[in-house]
C-alpha cells in the first residue's frame, strides 16, 4: 500500500500552544501611540513627589488637587525650588523673627521626603557639636527664603531614617560647603556608601528591614532580637502584591496630566512677561 511521505513534513520552528490568538477581538486600540511626549520627564515622581496624588484613594479629589496645584505653582514662581533627592545635601535659608539677623541657614543631608501637595515635608539632618540635629521643613512654607542643592546625588534607599542610629560621621556636613555643580544632561549619581550603625539599642529593627544602604546589621543586632526573629512576621512576599502597589502609587496618565498642567502654567506666565523661571525641569534630561 502506497503512503505519501508524511514523515518528511518539515516542522516550522514556531512553538505550539493550545490556544491560537485572535488580536482583532482583543482590547480597543490605544488612543495615543506609546511615544515619548515632548518635554515630559520620565522620573517625574522622584523629582516632584509633592505633585503626586494622595496614597489614600478616598482623599483623591480632582478639584482639591487643582486648587492645591495652583497654590504650589504660584509659590514656585516666587521661590526657586531646586531638584533634590533623599541623599542630596541641601541648604535652607528661612526667616526667623527671633534671630538678630532675621534669617537662619541650615545645611544637612535630606533624609526624608513625605506627604503630597501643600503638606509636603522634607527633613534635613546634620551633626552640630556632636549632637545630631534634624529639621523638618514644609516645602511650601512662605518663611523659607531660599533652598539650595549643594550636592545633587541619591543614595541606595529612598528613606535615610537609619542615619539616626548610624555613626555621626555619616551625617556630618560642613556648613560652609561649596555647592557642587551637576553637569546638565548627565544622570544623577548614586552614592553607594554603606553606613555603619552604632551599637544597639536602635530606634527600629534595621536587621529585618530591607535597606540596602546599611552595612551588616545582622552581626550587630542583639542576641535577644536574633532569638526573636522566628517569631517576627516576615512579609517579604508582599512585594509580589501588584495591586497593593497600585493602590498607593501614581499612574502614568496622572503624571502626564500634571506635567501638562505645569507646562501650561509656565507658558501663560512667560507670555504675560512676569518671569523667565522654569518650573518643570530635570537635571538628568538633555534639554
Amino acid at each position, binding site marked *: 500500500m502506497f503512503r505519501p511521505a508524511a514523515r518528511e513534513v518539515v516542522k516550522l520552528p514556531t512553538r505550539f500552544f493550545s490556544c491560537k490568538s485572535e488580536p482583532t477581538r482583543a482590547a480597543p486600540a490605544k488612543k495615543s501611540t506609546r511615544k515619548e511626549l515632548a518635554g515630559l520627564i520620565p522620573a517625574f515622581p522622584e523629582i516632584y513627589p509633592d505633585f503626586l496624588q494622595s496614597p489614600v484613594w478616598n482623599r483623591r479629589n480632582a478639584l482639591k488637587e487643582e486648587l492645591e496645584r*495652583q497654590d504650589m505653582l504660584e509659590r514656585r*514662581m516666587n521661590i526657586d525650588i531646586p531638584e533634590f533627592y533623599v541623599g542630596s545635601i541641601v541648604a535652607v535659608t528661612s526667616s526667623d523673627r527671633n534671630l538678630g539677623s532675621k534669617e537662619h541657614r541650615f545645611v544637612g543631608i535630606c533624609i526624608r521626603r513625605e506627604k503630597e501637595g501643600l503638606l509636603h515635608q522634607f527633613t534635613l539632618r546634620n551633626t552640630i557639636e556632636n549632637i545630631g540635629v534634624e529639621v523638618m521643613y*514644609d516645602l511650601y512654607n512662605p518663611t523659607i*527664603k531660599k533652598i539650595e542643592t549643594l550636592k545633587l546625588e541619591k543614595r541606595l534607599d529612598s528613606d535615610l531614617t537609619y542615619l539616626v542610629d548610624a555613626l555621626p560621621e555619616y551625617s556630618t556636613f560642613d556648613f560652609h560647603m561649596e555647592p557642587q555643580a551637576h553637569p546638565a544632561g548627565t544622570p544623577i549619581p548614586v552614592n553607594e556608601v554603606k553606613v555603619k550603625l552604632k551599637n544597639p539599642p536602635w530606634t527600629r529593627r534595621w536587621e529585618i528591614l530591607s535597606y540596602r544602604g546599611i552595612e551588616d546589621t545582622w552581626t550587630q543586632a542583639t542576641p535577644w532580637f536574633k532569638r526573636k526573629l522566628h517569631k517576627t512576621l516576615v512579609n517579604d512576599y508582599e512585594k509580589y502584591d501588584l495591586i497593593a502597589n497600585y493602590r498607593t502609587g501614581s499612574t502614568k496618565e496622572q503624571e502626564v496630566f500634571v506635567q501638562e498642567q505645569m507646562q501650561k502654567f509656565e507658558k501663560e*506666565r512667560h507670555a504675560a512677561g512676569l518671569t523667565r523661571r522654569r518650573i518643570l525641569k530635570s537635571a538628568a534630561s538633555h534639554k
Partner: protein
Amino acid sequence: MPGSKNKSRGTLRRKISEKCKFSLFEMFRSLVTSVTNSPACEFAGRILSANGGHITQHRGRRRTLTPVPWLPPVNEHVPKSSVGISKVTKTLLETVIEKENQVASTFANQASHQAATSIADIPASSRRVGLVVRKIGMLPQWTKEGGRILCTILEVDENHVVGVTSPDSWYKASAIGKRKAFNRHGPMWKVTVGATNEDPTNYTSAYRKKFTRAGVPVKETLGCFLVTEDALPLLGQPLDARHFEVGQYVTATGKTIDWGFQGGMHRWGMRGQPTRRTTKSHRRIGSVGSVGDARIWPGKRMPGHMGYEWRTVSGLEIVRINIDKQVIYVKGSVPGDMGEKLLLKDCLQEEKRLKSGPMPTWTPSLETIEEEPESPEEGVVPKNLLFKETFSPKLFRFTSPSIVYTDADAKKAAGRDKTKAKIAKVKK
C-alpha cells in the same frame, strides 16, 4: 410536563419584563409631563435637618442606618437590562434630561436676578439660610506672620432652594414641625436646600416631583434650615458660595466618620490592660461595675458602633473663598470623611455672629465690577491668570514673595517688657 413548565416560566418572564417596561414608561412619562400639585412628601431618610442651634437631649437610638419605613422610597430600582429601548432613544433621553436641567437652571437664575436682596445689617433675631457643602479635603495655608493654619475645603456644588414651608403648614404636616416651627426664637420657616445635580432616572417619580415643583434639576442631597421670615429666599433660587463672607464664622453640621463596631480603647479612649502577664485581655475594658448592685449602670462605656452620628462644630472662620470654583476654605476641621455632605450656616454666638451681609442671600445683582487699574504694576500677576478669589487680610497669598521679618516683628512677639517690673493691672 417539562415543556409546559418551561412555557409557563416563559410567560411569567414576559409578564415581568412587561411590568418593568410599564414602570419605566411611567417614569419617563412623569419625566416629560408637567407635575400635578400633590401633597408634599417628606424624605426624612435623605433630608439632613439642622435646628437653629438649640441643644436638645435625645433619648433612644443614636443612629439609624435605614430610612424610616413609612416614607416613600427615593431610589428607583429598574433592572436596566430588562428594558428594551434602542440606543437612539437612550441617547435622546439623555439629551432631553440635559436640556431639562439647562432650562431649569436658566429659569432659576433669571428668577434670582429679580429677587430683592441687599447688603444689610442682620438683626440678632433673624436666621439666614445655609448651604449644603461637600468636604473635599484639607490643606495648610499660612498667615502673613508665617503661622500655619490647617484648613478644610468645602465645595458648594450647585445649591438650589428646593422647598420653602411656612411655619403653619410645617406645624400641621409633621411631628418635627410641631417641635421646631414655633420655638422660643419665634416662628421658623423650613427651607430645604438641594445640592449636586443627579441623573433623574435613578429616582422615583415622587422624589422627582419635589424638584419639578421648585423648577430645579434633581438633586442628590437635601438639607433643611430654619429661617426667619425676613431672611426667606425664593423657591428655586440658586445659592452661591458668596452667601458667606470671608472673615465670618460658620457652623458645620454633619455625620461623623462611620467606624463600625469598635472596642472600648478606640471608641472611648480607654487604656486597655498590660501587654504582658495577662492573657486574652490586652484591649478589654475591664470591670463594668460593683458587686452589690449586680447590674450595669445605664450609659456605661462599652464597645459598640462608633461614629455616624450627627455632630456640630461651631465657630469656624472662613479664610478664603474661591468664587470660580465655588469653594470655601474654613479654618479648622469639620465632622465627617472626605466627600461627605455637611450643612453650613451662620454662627449664632453673639461675638461671632455676622453683623452685616447679603440678606436674604447673595444674588448676581450684588456683583460689583472692580475697576481695572489703568497701567498694571510691574510684577503683579494679571487677573485673568488667577482664580477669582477673596482672601482674609491676614492670609498669606502665594503670589507674593517670601515672608521677611523686621525688628518690629520680634518686639511684637517678645511679649512683656522685661526691663520693667511686673505689676498687676487694677480693674477700675
